[in-house]
């Protein structure tokens, strides 16, 4: 009797956990089935429509030709040296732009967010700068600094800066004043307040912005390369565009998409490590049950 009543709930627990695991696995399978289906429909439809001539493959490219072009980019290379060289340049520009833009955005965002006077002085200028179309900035940079990597890094950094700056600024403004009061009573200097409360609290916002910021870094580097460069994926794209070769343009897009997905994954890892204190989002908890 006692044995039975002791094992009964235990059995049910095991059942519950196994059921939940199975449900989760089933869920994931269906998500992947859906994803593959979308890709097959899209690529297959594109291939079909261009094969039967509804879409002109001269303008729209064709998946099989994109694949061939991708293969030739990696085996034959490009007019400007190997694809790896060009990809390396673009990634380097994007990464440096990302790092500089993020550092500037975080530092200036936290500074202006925690200092009312500075934020009042600088806010009109920041709004004006933010309203300048980025492509115009790109042209200015290339005219001013030439065709090297410098202007690409600069444009990527500017794009990243605004994404990160506004989030860091808002993150500082949203700091729980109760926590600030608490840390001050515990004896913190203004440096201590920043270290123990402002920065960790703004970190949620900053990290959220990094996902989009890396996309912006890639865009900045590519756009600046299209505007004028000696090496880089953007140059290959603009060259292909000039030769009416949409397949190579698409192939370059595929390469950059892979890079961006990889970076996104790394940022997600960073987010998990830095924000492990955060309560799980509700949908996650529900999934866990």
């Amino acid at each position: 009797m006692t044995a039975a009543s002791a094992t009964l709930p235990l059995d049910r627990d095991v059942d519950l956990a196994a059921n939940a695991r199975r449900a989760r696995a089933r869920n994931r399978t269906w998500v992947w089935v859906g994803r593959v289906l979308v890709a097959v429909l899209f690529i297959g439809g594109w291939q079909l429509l261009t094969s039967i001539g509804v879409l002109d493959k001269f303008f729209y490219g064709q998946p099989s030709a994109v694949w061939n072009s991708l293969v030739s980019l990696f085996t034959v290379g490009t007019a400007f040296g190997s694809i790896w060289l060009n990809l390396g340049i673009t990634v380097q520009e994007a990464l440096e732009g990302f790092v500089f833009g993020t550092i500037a955005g975080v530092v200036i965002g936290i500074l202006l967010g925690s200092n009312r006077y500075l934020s009042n002085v600088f806010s009109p200028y920041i709004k004006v700068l933010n309203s300048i179309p980025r492509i115009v900035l790109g042209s200015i940079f290339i005219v001013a600094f030439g065709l090297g990597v410098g202007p690409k890094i600069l444009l990527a950094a500017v794009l990243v800066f605004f994404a990160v700056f506004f989030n860091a600024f808002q993150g500082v403004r949203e700091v729980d004043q109760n926590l600030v009061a608490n840390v001050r009573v515990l004896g913190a200097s203004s440096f201590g307040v920043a270290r123990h409360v402002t920065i960790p609290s703004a970190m949620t916002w900053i990290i959220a912005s990094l996902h989009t910021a890396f996309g912006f870094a890639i865009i900045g580097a590519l756009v600046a390369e299209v505007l004028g460069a000696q090496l880089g994926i953007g140059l290959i794209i603009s060259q292909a565009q000039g030769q009416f070769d949409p397949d190579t343009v698409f192939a370059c897009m595929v390469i950059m998409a892979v890079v961006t997905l990889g970076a996104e994954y790394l940022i997600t890892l960073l987010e998990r490590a830095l924000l492990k204190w955060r309560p799980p989002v509700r949908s996650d908890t529900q999934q866990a049950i």
Partner: protein
Amino acid sequence: MGQKRDSGLVPQPPSLCSQDDREVNAMADTRIPPTEVGAAAARIELVGLTKRFITPKGDPFTAISDVTLTVEPGQFCAIVGPTGCGKSTTLAQVSGLEQPSAGTVRVGGQLVQGVTRGVSYMFQADSLFPWKTVLQNVMTGPVLTGTPKRQATPLALDWLRRVGLSGFEDRYPHQLSGGMRKRVAMAAALINEPRILLMDEPFGALDVQTKAIMQTELLQLWEQLRPSVLFITHDLDEAVALSDRVVIMTSSPGTVKDVFDIDLPRPRGDVQDIRHEPHFQELQGRIWSSLKDEVDRAYRQTAAAA
């Protein structure tokens, strides 16, 4: 967090416009900078304490007016009063986080001019750092006052043991129950061995049983350290059971209406038991009749304003 990510997708400039400082700081007279006073408990003296705020409409609003009150060294003093009468405001002036519009606060004879060392504050709202583990939360005080981490860690572990949270040191606040969070806050407040302990409705949100346990724990810890305590509560039983002195505040603008000395013997042991003593009941009744008028008045005030 979806909301936050959105604001990254569409970087919209948050309002950068200024918002006026809401406090009226009338005082700029000659004041001695805060210094450390002896380690033991300190006397708290409030004289003519007045605090005015500027409401969003721009009118001055008097939150507390002419509060005069003394807490003897090592005394446990409770403040009760209707909601919105200025209890939290009073505590903020004592902590040095805010500056009074008029009047003075002295702690251990020293004029309070800014945040003073030796004061611990348990806030009305939850104020644990969500990004720190339980252990790091408790350690924050010693670390900020310059204790090396190597010494602060065993100290914090010891305080976690004292509040009955051994084994929870690696959890984050969101993984604790409300009562556990209050225990962490209590350990974080007491680890600095304060001369003054300010507590703003620390057990207000707890269930009756947990509250009774926490009250008994607090009394035991207080008897070991004997800081002077200012303890805000709405619970008259709690006020009488814990304190040496109960201060009644009037409805807004708050000022001291009555002071009752509680002559129940110490140590009081389990707060659950002393509730049934006749003398306890009598004191509680007297305090309630004094408070009742104010509560009624405060209720009518808010109802009229609405």
